[in-house]
């Protein structure tokens, strides 16, 4: 779409196409506006008020996540009033829960921590006021820590509107409100299928992956974009790795609207990657001698294969050799084997287990 409107943020003019929110335009131009309840994939919720901005000609502060940008708007994101309000929001969250960053899995990419940093809150201004709720580690893959939950509702929206598992909801009332699974069952006993979408959208450390615990803080992880191999949907996975080991998987958020999976994953793509690092992976060529496998060098193994295939071809013809390629390996692997069968051996006996 064409850039048909101009808005001014903190004195600078930005062009944009219509239909965007003030927050969209600010984020696209690297203007810092914090959000807690808003996430691009769960949409606007208008709850947390962290994204308030001031607009010339409007009364009071407005939520930038829910406000459509109009041509000529003059916006401020960093007035004293806004800073005060943001600070108050963070202070209230910090007093209502146990927001202890020291060993938190989210340390370094927690959105509440970020906000506190930007507001310059070194020590919470209010006393802590909350009851401690025990950790829910009943599920295989996900740990829930209600004491870190800020009730932003992203997980509830994602569970009910993105992945459609319809497990999470808000339960109980007023001060006792919390996110529950089914009728407030421990997650491991609920109908949750452990797709992990809730963890992916959680802005704080209330929802984390069990398998990632203690494997390395966020800033030590490297992100690599891969394609999941567990079915034909072809979900794009950002693998977080450290020291040549898989730590956890996230659906790719970058360009999520264009990705086949729109940022989502299932339980297999989310948790099924530890096979990569299993001790029983094959690490060296093996040749069977007297009924037992013996470790071999690549030279030994490949020379043997090449001479055996050569002998078989000479004795029985190219058509006596068959090749099974794989619907699990890449196009390049399949192309190479097809080229080898047809071009080097000279047989069309090449197929894969698509039927099985």
């Amino acid at each position: 779409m064409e850039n048909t409107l101009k808005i001014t943020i903190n004195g600078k003019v930005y062009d944009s196409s219509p239909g965007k929110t003030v927050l969209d335009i600010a984020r696209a131009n690297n203007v810092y506006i914090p959000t807690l309840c808003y996430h691009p994939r769960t949409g606007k919720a208008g709850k947390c008020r962290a994204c308030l901005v001031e607009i010339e000609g409007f009364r009071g502060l407005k939520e930038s996540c829910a406000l459509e940008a109009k041509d000529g708007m003059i916006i401020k994101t960093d007035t004293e009033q806004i800073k005060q309000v943001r600070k108050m929001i963070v202070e209230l969250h910090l007093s209502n829960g146990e927001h202890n960053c020291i060993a938190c899995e989210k340390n370094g990419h927690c959105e509440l921590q970020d906000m506190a940093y930007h507001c310059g809150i070194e020590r919470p201004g209010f006393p802590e006021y909350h009851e401690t709720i025990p950790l829910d580690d009943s599920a295989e893959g996900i740990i829930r820590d209600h004491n870190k939950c800020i009730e932003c509702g992203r997980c509830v929206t994602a569970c009910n509107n993105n992945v459609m598992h319809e497990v999470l909801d808000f339960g109980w009332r007023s001060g006792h409100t919390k996110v529950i699974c089914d009728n407030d069952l421990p997650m491991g006993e609920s109908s949750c299928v452990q797709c992990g979408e809730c963890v992916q959208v959680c802005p704080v450390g209330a929802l984390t992956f069990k398998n990632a615990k203690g494997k390395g803080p966020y800033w030590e992880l490297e992100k690599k974009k891969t394609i999941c191999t567990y079915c034909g949907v072809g979900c794009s996975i950002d693998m977080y790795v450290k020291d040549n080991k898989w730590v956890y998987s996230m659906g790719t958020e970058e360009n999520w609207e264009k990705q086949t999976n729109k940022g989502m994953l299932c339980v297999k793509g989310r948790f099924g990657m530890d096979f990569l690092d299993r001790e029983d992976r094959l690490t060296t060529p093996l040749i069977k001698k007297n009924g037992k496998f013996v470790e071999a060098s690549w030279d030994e193994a490949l020379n043997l294969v090449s001479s055996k295939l050569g002998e078989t071809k000479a004795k029985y013809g190219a058509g006596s050799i068959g090749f099974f390629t794989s619907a699990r390996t890449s196009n390049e692997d399949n192309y190479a084997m097809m080229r080898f069968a047809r071009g080097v051996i000279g047989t069309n006996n090449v197929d894969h287990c698509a039927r099985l």
Partner: protein
Amino acid sequence: MTNSLQETEKSDIIFVIGTNTTWNHPVFGGMVKKAVKRKGVKLIVVDPRDIDLAKCANLHLKQRPGSDSAVLMGLQHIIVKENWYNKAFVDERTEGWDDYVKSLEFYTPEKVEELSGISKQLLIDAAKLYATSGRGALYYAMGITQHTHGVDNVKACSNLQMILGNFGLEGTGVNPLRGQNNVQGACDMGALPNVFTGYQPVTVEENRKKFADAWGVKVENMDDKVGQTVTTMVNNAGDSIKAIYIMGENPMMSDPNLHHAEEQFKKLDFLVVQDIFMTETAQIADVVLPACAFAEKTGTFVNTERRVQISNKALNQPGIAKNDFGIIVELAKRMGCDTFPETPETLFEEMRQLTPSYKGMTYERLEKECGLRWPCPTEDHPGTPILHVGKFSRGKGLLVPIEYRAPEEVISKEYPIWLTTGRLLQHYHTGSMTRRSKVLNGLVPYAKVEINVVDAKKLKIKDGEKVKVSSRRGSIEIHAEVTKKIQEGIVFIPFHFVEAAANQLTNDALDPIAKIPEYKVCAVKIEKIADCC
């Protein structure tokens, strides 16, 4: 797929048959659910089990395993008889109407009720709902294809979509959901006995010449006959097939008749297995070559909607394992061929120059544009989300007459229960990866046979107890899951578990054309294992 995964919300109605989508393609299953529950798209589910999607369906038709083509043709019988079909589309874009309509005569609602167990009224309701709701998309998976009449089932699906004009528009189409991440790619790459890349037949001399020239080999040395399929190669092991080279497959676990597969492989003079684990098949090999897993190499994969995507190397290989293609390149050199490209990108480059439908794709474009859907003939072509727009690739769409055939094996006095097999949400295929995952194996550590409460009561089987399931080919011991989710007289076993391998039981009878085994139907008996002590 003729269409794309993002189109669920563009359909007016979705028809799901032979796919337990939320378990086997979970992220897409969620998209279907969202279209239905949040956007008002209608849904018809045809499946013998109460699968998750059936809960939000407008209609759920529970057919007997193996009666899919009867159900599909039965719906068409009603649609044609009631004049609910798209006459303009049939006239303009299809051929074969007369023979097709003649073959529909057999599939009266009464007959289909008898064959499938679905009531006549429900068939009529479903036909009306599907035909009169607007744009309809049909999704299917292995529940349609893994039959001795799998090809008939697929043709029946495409007949249904053709008479309703459900082609070439957003939210329509015949959409098979591929079970493995690169089935589409393996086929596109010519890993099939009859075609080169992009489905260029090996029997056409011009094609052989094109590839021979590009590969620097003599065209006389190329095989001009169609080769053997996996299943026939296994059957001919020891006879016409003396050596087999297997890359990344575990046919010893996935073959429909495991005893048979093992016997056959043992007849070979030479077996090479290239894999990431010591699989059941690797154990009987003469040479085992260690390969990199997907995250340890860069390469492209093609998803079920024909989208070619790049997957990047995230980890280093264990030990001295090598890339699959790298091993083949090394081997080719030893066998006197030094024209092989040696990197993923150069292999892809060579391939796309030989493949019209891939010609416009480059690694750079694939990265930047989040993948491209073929055909993509030129570098400025945006790719093709929807096939058959305005015209079928073969010209006119062929309506195919279908003669009903029962499954190869039907229930009998000795084997009175239908067995159908499939996957679970938490596991994948032969389990060589998911059973090694802490979380996934923790969620579902062992196999269970789903059995209806009524059958369980008759057999005095309690939920969770171990039972013996036998077919004419073998028997397994497995825990029972007593449930109402499956109909009486049918049981379901997932095939991920080596200690209770469903494929010990399944029938290796093949579809005569596709050579696909009939995994989805066979006859079994279930016995209580006598309590010890």
